[in-house]
């Protein structure tokens, strides 16, 4: 072929993803989605309130045993593949007064465990190449083991002392209070206005207070689920370059820088699964050490609590804020317990690496682990305990 006859390339160097939506429009859409998300939480809360005492719906209904509540948190999060959806729903239920804090706390801890299934599933994609798989599975399951260890220590302590709940209540009560255990949030009024627009529409469909309540709950959960999914998707496109730059910085560093990257990326995309799933191929390819990915993962644990805090702002109820703060405190205390002491800092990583070595030899073990820890144990636990 002569150089003069060079064909026109169907794919010369194409810069960046083909963005059909301009960034500004996307940013405005994210703000609108965030507002809708808060409306969804308020709808859920209002729906549960209108149904009256003891009618908190579905999976969360009638759970009294803390372990059963923990399993419900795990299972609910595995089902919706998002701890943000679970924690926001819990915030709504607590704010409505239909879910006691004592039950909500283990559920929040369960949500923390349940959310780790996503990157563990992502790691299974590397199963073809043993060394890659060993690294990927280690990177994914160290998150599981950190959360499992944190729960194993903090749940019994919480049951015995209620320290997380008490501390969170103390912090929540520092907020400028209104009447009836509520606090004055600037967002609250705006959200109430949005709910006020939806209310008459539902009222034209049904006059029954029960149907009205159920419709509000279902609509609320659907809005929470859809808006969070769309916020994550849009934010990921909007800040892809910043995520890349931050992770490039974190590649060469560990510790606090990594943790900060984990927090920032997760707060920005509203999903710890996105952050931890990005780490899996980087560790698998060997460019990020498992131990350097570890603080980023812990940062993601803290970053993901921002969603429940936002949801609590929409409710304007101290109880809602308390459970959201429990989520934050649980993750901070977990890190403070395990991370500063060098001898136990990498315990979750070591366990994850040992399991990964076993899983490389017997691939079915990896699948069995996911099925047992995230599905079988929670189901059996709920059936036996409650």
């Amino acid at each position, binding site marked *: 072929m002569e150089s003069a006859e060079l064909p026109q390339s169907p794919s010369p160097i*194409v810069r960046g993803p083909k963005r059909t939506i301009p960034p500004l429009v996307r940013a405005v859409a994210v703000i609108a989605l965030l507002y809708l998300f808060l409306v969804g939480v308020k709808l859920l809360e209002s729906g549960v309130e209108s149904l009256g005492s003891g009618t908190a719906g579905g999976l969360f209904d009638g759970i009294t045993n803390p372990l059963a509540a923990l399993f419900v948190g795990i299972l609910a999060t595995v089902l919706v593949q998002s701890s943000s959806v679970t924690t926001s729903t819990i915030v709504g239920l607590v704010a409505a007064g239909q879910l006691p804090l004592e039950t909500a706390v283990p559920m929040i801890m369960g949500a923390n465990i349940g959310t780790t299934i996503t990157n563990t599933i992502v790691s299974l994609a590397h199963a073809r190449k043993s060394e890659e798989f060993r690294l990927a599975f280690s990177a994914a399951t160290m998150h599981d083991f950190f959360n499992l260890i944190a729960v194993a220590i903090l749940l019994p302590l919480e049951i015995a002392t209620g320290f997380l709940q008490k501390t969170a209540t103390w912090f929540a009560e520092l907020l400028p209070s209104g009447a009836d255990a509520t606090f004055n949030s600037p967002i609250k009024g705006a959200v109430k206005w949005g709910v006020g627009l939806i209310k008459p529409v539902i009222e034209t469909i049904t006059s029954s207070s029960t149907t009205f309540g159920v419709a509000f709950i279902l609509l609320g959960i659907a809005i929470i689920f859809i808006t969070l999914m769309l916020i994550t998707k849009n934010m990921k496109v909007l800040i892809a370059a910043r995520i890349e730059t931050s992770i490039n910085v974190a590649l060469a560093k560990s510790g606090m820088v990594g943790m900060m990257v984990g927090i920032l990326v997760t707060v920005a995309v509203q999903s710890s699964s996105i952050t931890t799933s990005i780490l899996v191929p980087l560790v698998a390819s060997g460019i990020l050490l498992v131990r350097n990915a570890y603080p980023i993962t812990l940062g993601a644990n803290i970053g993901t609590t921002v969603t429940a805090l936002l949801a609590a702002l929409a409710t304007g109820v101290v109880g809602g804020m308390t459970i959201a703060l429990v989520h934050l405190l649980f993750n901070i205390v977990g890190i403070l317990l395990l991370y500063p002491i060098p001898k136990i800092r990498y315990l979750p990583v070591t366990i994850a690496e040992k399991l990964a070595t076993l899983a490389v030899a017997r691939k079915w073990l990896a699948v069995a682990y996911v099925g047992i820890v995230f599905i079988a144990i929670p189901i059996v636990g709920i059936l036996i305990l409650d």
Partner: protein
Amino acid sequence: MVLEFFKGSSQSPIDTIEATLVQMLCAGDDVFVTATNALFGGGKSKETKQEVRSTDHQINEAQQEIRRALMVHAAVGAGDLPLVLQYASIVKDAERIGDYAKNVYDLVRYGADFDAADDRDELARYRDNVSRLIRDAAGVFASHDTEAAKRLIGKADGFLDDYDARVKAAYRSEGTASDAVSRALYFRYLKRMTAHVMNVLTALVQPLDRLDYYDEAKEDRD
């Protein structure tokens, strides 16, 4: 760091990768110029050896840096996989330019010296052509100028036959074996460097599956 994250950077990660690729090409030319200066009278020295090796080491580091950045880009899922694959391919070409330039210095270490050659100016002209080609390619790559890339590929393509003819001439020459080997290897390295420059440029004008096909004989390319 928090402020930096939310403020963002004026340079995207892909901009950074491209800037590093351009630096690699320029560093490859630096190695080449240093090595050929030694070949055309400068001779071997500890300093030159150190300079060649350290610049080549920088090129290798840059290659690894680009690979890491590409992996992060792919993991974040920016959605431009063809670009990642293209850059993963051409970064290897940019690195090879530095390697062949280092090989030119190896000729000096083995005793080659073109300074006293009868055709010194002609040999030096080839060197100048390749050096200019690398620099021009770096500029064209940085500007994404596809028309200029096509012109440069055409120009470089013209050099390849010439190198082959010179290798053949060295093979048939009746001079000393060391001179014939030095010349054959010199032109072989120039050919390989030119081909790698062409590969880098093809990323601007060729689809992904047709990258790297410019170092084959013309009749085998289609």
